[in-house]
């Protein structure tokens, strides 16, 4: 069975995509390029004990919760 030209192109493209999955992903940011990312000011949670407490202050007064990605500690109250 002969493939039409568009079909042949599609098969080649599919093969390229699938074969690409066999090769390891190359990090696009090399380890030696991560100086800025390693800086403490780039941490999502630089002071866990503090951010956790503040999350509490909000959570006990609000209906929403979760997905804050920070650690806890604290109290709300009446």
């Amino acid at each position: 069975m002969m493939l039409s030209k568009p079909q042949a192109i599609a098969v080649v493209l599919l093969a390229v995509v699938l074969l690409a999955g066999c090769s390891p992903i190359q990090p696009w940011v090399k380890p030696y390029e991560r100086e800025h990312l390693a800086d403490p000011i780039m941490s999502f949670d630089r002071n866990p004990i503090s951010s956790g407490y503040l999350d509490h202050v909000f959570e006990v007064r609000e209906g929403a919760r979760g997905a804050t990605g920070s650690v806890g500690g604290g109290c709300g109250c009446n």
Partner: protein
Amino acid sequence: MTPFQHQRVRWLIAIGFGLGAVGRADVLPEDRSDVLYHRYEGGGLTVQGPSVLLRKKFGDSFSASYQYYEDLISSASIDVLSQASAYKEKRTQHNVGLDYLRGSTLYSIGWINSNEPDYKSNTGFFNISQSMFGDLTTISFGYTQGWDKVGEVDHGIVVRSFSKDADRRNWAIGLSQVLTRNMLLGLNFEADESNGYLQNPYRGVRFIDPTVARGYSFGAAVSPNTRTGIAGSVQLKYYLPWHAAAEGNYRLYNDTWGITANTAKLGYTQTLFSDWTLEATARYYWQTAANFYSDLFPFQNSQNFMSRDRELAQFRSLTLGLGASYEFHPGWPRWVDKGSLNFSYNRMRINYQDFHNNLLMSVVPGDEPLYILDANVMQFFISFWY
């Protein structure tokens, strides 16, 4: 007296302590200790106390942590003054956790116990994080389960006949992604399920009552005994060339009680003179009301489920924060690498849109001014790395 929010507080502590922000999974958390003093003051409520967090590695594979937390509560809030009298109480909490690193996988387990006269809580959690793609990507999965015992205190005496259970489960997944050499992305998604006694035993609902002079009375509140919520958030952090960082964060929340909430936050961090770090944040939050919430019901027992908890009302809030840290390198003791002194202040305002200040008189019930909460939140803490 303890409001039902405490259930959620402990729950969130568990989730937070267990999972933390999605970070690298190929290294153990750094050895560090913090001693913190916190103080919240607003709306007739003062909560203050100390907290201590200790973390230490053991060998190349293990890291253990312990946190002590204490709340000293003095309350004369609008909720207390409406239906009871001012009170004071103390809550203590202990958290223990253990992390185990194997290759690029970090396993974490922990247990949390919280105690106060009318509320006992125990929580266990498990979390697993995996780094991949040359450590550009970290994914995590966590599960948390909690068992709470809700009690009641009347005039300083524990009511033995009142004891209710509340159980909670939480599933969380997270992703941290290096986008460029200057930008990080964080994604978090959580599903949360609660069963049992999910209301505050001290709070009632307000309903129109023409038989009394003020025109309204308070009656029993009834909340559903199940609640399921989902939350998703996205965080972006960008390094700026003048040794500063900018951050944006958005979260969407929705639950089966009818609450939909949005949280947007912006942050800016700036270093100065190599040993100072300054921080400014702005956070805006808005939510819809629970579908069984009302500030004033038309008559007693007018619905199957009724609540006047203002946490379930519709409102908007804005919080502005400032923080400063000073890093130092003490020569003694020799095993301490560095330390930091930190202070932060947050000013919060909540504008309730359907919760009226019933402490103020009005001719017609429900015509009182809308309630506004202003609060100051302060933290002072000292940290050591070793």
